[in-house]
């Protein structure tokens, strides 16, 4: 009798002990895999002399014996990107004999990847947003400087980094440098599916309103808004997913991106520029330049209800938008232009938020060459083009063709010399984001005026 009662207690005790020991278990497994990596890299260095030799060709391109990859992706199988990846994995296996096991996590990868890596799960490469891969998971990444600088069979005699989008590789390198990882490398992830966040507009509605060209400065922009309003559509719309970005861009054009970053970091919205931004939108709302539905739009209402139905003409959004609403639209003529400058103190059309998804290779992978080969397979040539076509997205390879919907976005992209962070930092802090959304919506309903909105933001301190 007593024995039986002791049993549950004993079990519980064992569990608690086991939990405490799980730490040591984790350490041992990661120590083991680290030892493996060290062995492999030293084996590689022994096999090929001095990787610093610029002429080292194809050594990084030789696939490991018996390689097989496990690839965790952020896409869902149902999405066009997912479908293309599934196809690409099969094609890659046909071409190289390397089996790629794709795990379609969907956006949940954001929370399942890190614990899985910590537990030593076998993952060779993964992808996610370019910011997230380096900032959240930088410590797990294999440095790719040498890989990017080398030449391969499929890069036409050039270094890899020369056959893909320079802006994005430079961006990834810069991010890696800023992150300052222990391995001293700079480039740690390879971007793909780039995007740029800019004003997307409906060319048909512009034509109907008698607008002949996209606005190049703020006065022209207001003029465009007036014409659109007269023609009976809402000039601009937005929903709760993009309000912070809309506000951020405005603030950036008024005080500049450094000031924006400062404001969010210090939670100090007392800067007069903030009031100016708030009052600007108050005016826009009052004049009817901002759709009154903006207050009640819950994502994706802004794009599905208004923009896709030709009820709103312009939307500050990403180049993924054509893909997202392709089921709701037919023969939609897309145009893009950069958000115009407002103040001299702020940035101009050269500052835009761009980025993409990116591939990262697990530093503990047994098959880095194979992993990088797959990345090349996805970012240059046939499958890069396919990915761009199927997802109406931007290609990574230099020779690939941009989809026609994004022709004008390409011009904005090429004219962007300064990179803004996502939503110009307004979403870095959930509190700030929530306050902006709430205040912005109230501005539209008339509950707030510019001053009240600015006060609400200043209260965050």
């Amino acid at each position, binding site marked *: 009798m007593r024995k*039986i009662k002791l049993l*549950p207690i004993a079990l519980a005790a064992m569990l608690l002990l086991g939990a405490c020991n799980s730490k040591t278990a984790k350490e041992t497994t990661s120590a083991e895999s680290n030892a493996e990596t060290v062995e492999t890299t030293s084996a590689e260095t022994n096999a090929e002399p001095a990787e610093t030799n610029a002429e080292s060709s194809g050594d990084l391109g030789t696939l490991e014996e018996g390689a097989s990859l496990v690839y965790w992706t952020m896409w869902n199988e149902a999405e066009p990107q997912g479908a293309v990846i599934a196809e690409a994995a099969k094609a890659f296996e046909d071409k190289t004999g390397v089996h790629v096991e794709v795990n379609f996590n969907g956006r949940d990868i954001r*929370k399942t990847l*890190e614990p899985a890596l910590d537990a030593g799960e076998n993952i060779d490469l993964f992808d996610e947003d370019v910011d997230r891969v380096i900032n*959240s998971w930088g410590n797990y990444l294999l440095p790719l400087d040498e890989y990017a600088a080398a030449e391969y069979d499929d890069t036409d005699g050039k270094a890899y980094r020369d056959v893909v989008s320079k802006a994005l590789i430079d961006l990834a390198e810069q991010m890696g440098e800023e992150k300052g990882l222990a391995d001293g490398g700079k480039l740690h992830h390879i971007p793909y599916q780039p995007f740029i966040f800019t004003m997307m507009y409906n060319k048909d509605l512009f034509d109907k309103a008698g607008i002949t060209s996209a606005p190049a400065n703020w006065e022209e922009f207001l003029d465009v808004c007036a014409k659109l309003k007269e023609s009976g559509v809402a000039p601009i719309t937005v929903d709760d997913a993009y309000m912070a970005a809309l506000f951020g861009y405005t603030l950036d054009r008024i005080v500049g991106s450094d000031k924006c970053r400062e404001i969010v970091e210090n939670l100090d919205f007392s800067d007069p520029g903030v009031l100016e931004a708030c009052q600007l939108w108050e005016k826009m709302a009052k004049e009817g330049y901002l759709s009154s539905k903006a*207050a009640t739009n819950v994502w994706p209402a802004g794009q599905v209800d208004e923009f896709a139905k030709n009820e709103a003409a312009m939307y500050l959004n990403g180049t993924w938008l054509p893909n997202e609403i392709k089921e709701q639209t037919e023969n939609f003529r897309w145009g893009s232009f950069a958000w115009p400058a407002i103040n001299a103190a702020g940035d101009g059309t050269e500052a835009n938020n761009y980025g993409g998804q990116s591939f990262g290779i697990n530093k503990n992978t047994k098959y880095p060459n194979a992993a990088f080969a797959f990345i090349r397979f996805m970012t240059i040539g046939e499958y890069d083009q396919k990915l761009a076509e199927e997802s109406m997205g931007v290609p990574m390879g230099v020779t690939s063709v941009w989809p026609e919907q994004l022709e004008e976005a390409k011009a904005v992209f090429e004219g962007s010399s300064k990179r803004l962070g996502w939503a110009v930092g307004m*979403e870095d802090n959930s509190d700030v*984001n929530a306050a902006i959304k709430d205040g912005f919506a109230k501005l539209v309903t008339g509950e707030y005026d510019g001053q009240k909105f600015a006060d609400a933001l200043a209260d965050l301190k």
Partner: protein
Amino acid sequence: MKRKNTRMIVTFLAPVIILYAMVFLYPVARTAIMSLFKVEMVSQPVSEWKFYGIGNYIDLFQTNLFLVSMKNILKILLIGGLIVLSMALIFAIILTSGIRMKRFARSVIYLPNVISAVAMGTMWLNYIYNEEYGLFNNVVTGLGGKSIPWTGPGSLFWSMLIAYGFGMVGYHMLIFISGIEQIGRDFYEAAEIEGANVFQQFLYITLPMLKGVMRSNVVIWTVAVAGFFVWGQLFSPVNLSYDTVTPVNYMYELVFGASSSASTARNAGMGASIGVIMALMVIIVSALSTLITRHDDVEL
């Protein structure tokens, strides 16, 4: 006889106790302890935890978004609870008072609870609350009123609560019904003979007999509200809003990261503290309701 009983007691209880220890005691204890440390990632080993006392709790109460979420959850708990449980009781009484098609009505009223919350939420948000062609506004304008902005700032919260409540009424109604139907008819017959009218019968027989069931419903409601998460996410699918944020939504973000790739801050310690606060909320309500109904337990 006593020995046999003890063996039976232990054998019957053992699985539950073991499961309990593994899946409740251990995690709860560990989370509660984690709430006293500064921990970034939930999977971090204990050696990396830094003691922080009640620092996490202090930080929480200084975070605007958390305070808003607490306000929201209390509104849901109290106002929502009152409305939903009253509606459930009313329906339970209607259905047990001899209307026709009782089975049919019961099935239909419970139906929303059976449908996945994700599906219901999407329907409410995209169809019923749509400002232009939504069901509600169609009815409102049909009756001559003006379109209501159901998903606007401030109103989104109430819309969410209504949608949530609608799905929960059937569930609580069923519990009330099973309670009412357990009340023996003799009581009513005796009361009728004694000359009590309908209202008196309700007040002096039905209501007191339902005390136990009422308590169950209150506790179940509180537990569900403490875990209120899906609906908040459905009504603000991209990121947190003042109208729809609840403690668990906020905690999810702290532990697993926000949906925006820009904010990469993770704070599992603070997340654990939110868990503790929610658990406390349930304990308090449970204790209070037990206290209130304890003395009045009527033996059948």
